[in-house]
């Protein structure tokens, strides 16, 4: 069996999601190759080659791949995929964007967001916002899979000695172009990789009030998250959103503040190791998944908590 993992990176650094995806690949079992497609991305190719258990790195470096546009990246993966039995990418906005294009071109029904590998054809994946877990068996000769990163540990980057081979870019259809990015700069840890997350909901009431969440997060060295309601209300940017359609997280400690716990939010955080909920409504559903619940006024409790940790 041979497995192709598509690396997520920013042309400078390999993203942690790639390491989780490699672990899923190693659970399937076989020779694992990693495709690093980017622009001025040789550092990333070097990092990829040091991942334990990797056989080879295919490095395609071209300005075409600088912004990972789905059309060009998809066509490249289709060209590289020849001979591989499995094609895996992380189920992040990076992987979700281009991988279905690859699956369609290969006439394969993609399996999205797997949380476990049962055998070479069979995988578990959440459906209905994680209300149920489906065990799905694929009959396609090639499997195209996105991997839920929180469900697999990160592979180690250390003793790998994979070869790096250069690949050739595929001609572009030139029907899409990158315009701009607004990527939030933050000194806090990345939400999907954080050990501790402090999340705020609609009860915060304003972006001004959201600062108490940030102060607690900074005291704990935590990342800041939010419910959909808080993002919709404009308290924080979209990339803070945790939930079915936002980010899926599983930190050691998740502190939900002023979040009622709609199923769509729980879908994004209920695999956290320890969950703390602070809410003034004692009937809030968030308390049903919380290890520690505190009923009270968050505007009193949160500053007090910040002062005592």
């Amino acid at each position, binding site marked *: 069996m041979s497995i192709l993992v598509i690396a997520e990176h920013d042309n400078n650094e390999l993203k942690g999601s790639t390491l989780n995806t490699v672990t899923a690949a190693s659970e399937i079992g076989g020779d694992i190759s990693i495709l690093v497609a980017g622009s001025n991305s040789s550092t990333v190719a070097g990092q990829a080659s040091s991942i334990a258990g990797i056989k080879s790195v295919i490095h395609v470096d071209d300005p075409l791949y600088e912004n990972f546009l789905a059309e060009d990246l998809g066509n490249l993966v289709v060209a590289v995929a020849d001979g591989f039995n499995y094609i895996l990418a992380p189920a992040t906005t990076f992987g979700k964007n281009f991988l279905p294009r690859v*699956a369609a071109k290969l006439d394969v*029904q993609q399996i999205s967001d797997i949380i476990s590998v049962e055998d070479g054809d069979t995988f578990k994946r959440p459906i209905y*916002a994680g209300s149920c877990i489906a065990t799905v068996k694929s009959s396609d000769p090639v499997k195209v899979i996105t991997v839920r990163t929180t469900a697999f540990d990160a592979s180690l980057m250390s003793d790998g000695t994979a070869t790096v081979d250069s690949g050739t870019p595929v001609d572009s259809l030139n029907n899409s172009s990158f315009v701009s990015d607004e990527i939030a700069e933050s000194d806090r840890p990345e939400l999907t990789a954080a050990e501790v997350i402090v999340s705020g909901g609609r009860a915060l009431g304003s972006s001004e009030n959201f600062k108490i969440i940030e102060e607690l997060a900074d005291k704990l060295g935590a990342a800041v998250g939010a419910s959909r309601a808080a993002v919709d209300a404009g308290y924080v940017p979209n990339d803070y959103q945790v939930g079915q359609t936002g980010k899926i997280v599983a930190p050691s400690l998740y502190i939900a503040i002023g979040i009622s716990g709609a199923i769509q939010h729980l879908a994004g955080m209920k695999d956290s190791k*320890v969950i703390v909920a602070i809410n003034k409504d004692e009937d809030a559903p968030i308390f049903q998944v919380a290890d520690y619940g505190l009923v009270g006024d968050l505007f009193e409790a949160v500053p007090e908590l910040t002062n005592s*940790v």
Partner: protein
Amino acid sequence: MKILVPIKRVVDYNVKVRPLSDNSNVDLNNVKMSVNPFCEIAVEEAVRLKESGQATEVVVVTVGGDESQEQLRACLALGADRAILVQSETLLEPLAIAKVLVKIVNSENPNLIILGKQAIDGDNNQTGQMLASLLNIPQATFASELKIDTDKALVTREIDGGLQTISVNLPAVVTTDLRLNEPRYASLPNIMQAKKKDLDIQNVSDLGIDVSNRTSILSVELPPKREAGVMVESVEELVEKLKNEAKVIT
């Protein structure tokens, strides 16, 4: 400019779905069904483009059973001009749906196709990208803003790190994220009027494509249940438990 909006009938987002007692699939008996929320956002965006004079016609299409007419009518009540139901007795997978939609696109020739980024039943997040791929046209997924500029669409996308803006040549596929717009509620006169709008019915077996399933569901189970924890009385007690019991802070 003509806009095609593929939509899906799904379990209402407020319903807590459970497995059947034999764990063969989810239990959809007597549950409320609705238009997938992301599809509603897609219809709303198309209707707004028509209202602002940038689009001339909005066509909604779905692949499903007869009962899906209800959701098509709901979209007509939101302002779509006409509807197409491609009848299928079996529940099709995203790849097969994308193949059906290719046929519809080839006969309707829309300039823009807007659809939800995912359906809240299977949570697959595939159909739009697959459709764009099979048509060899560009895509802009997870859109939070859409502007039409003659033969291009300028789309702001919600990505993990923040926002990204791309430009795609039309025809293109756009998939909607939550913050693209807030769909309207259909008014009673519009609901009445929607009953008179055209709803064309075709059958998937007449399209000459292979829509057979490539995957099978072996079982559907509840996720491992999280045990409810303890309520603490004070911040002081909370900190004590986090330090000494859970040992997640120092």
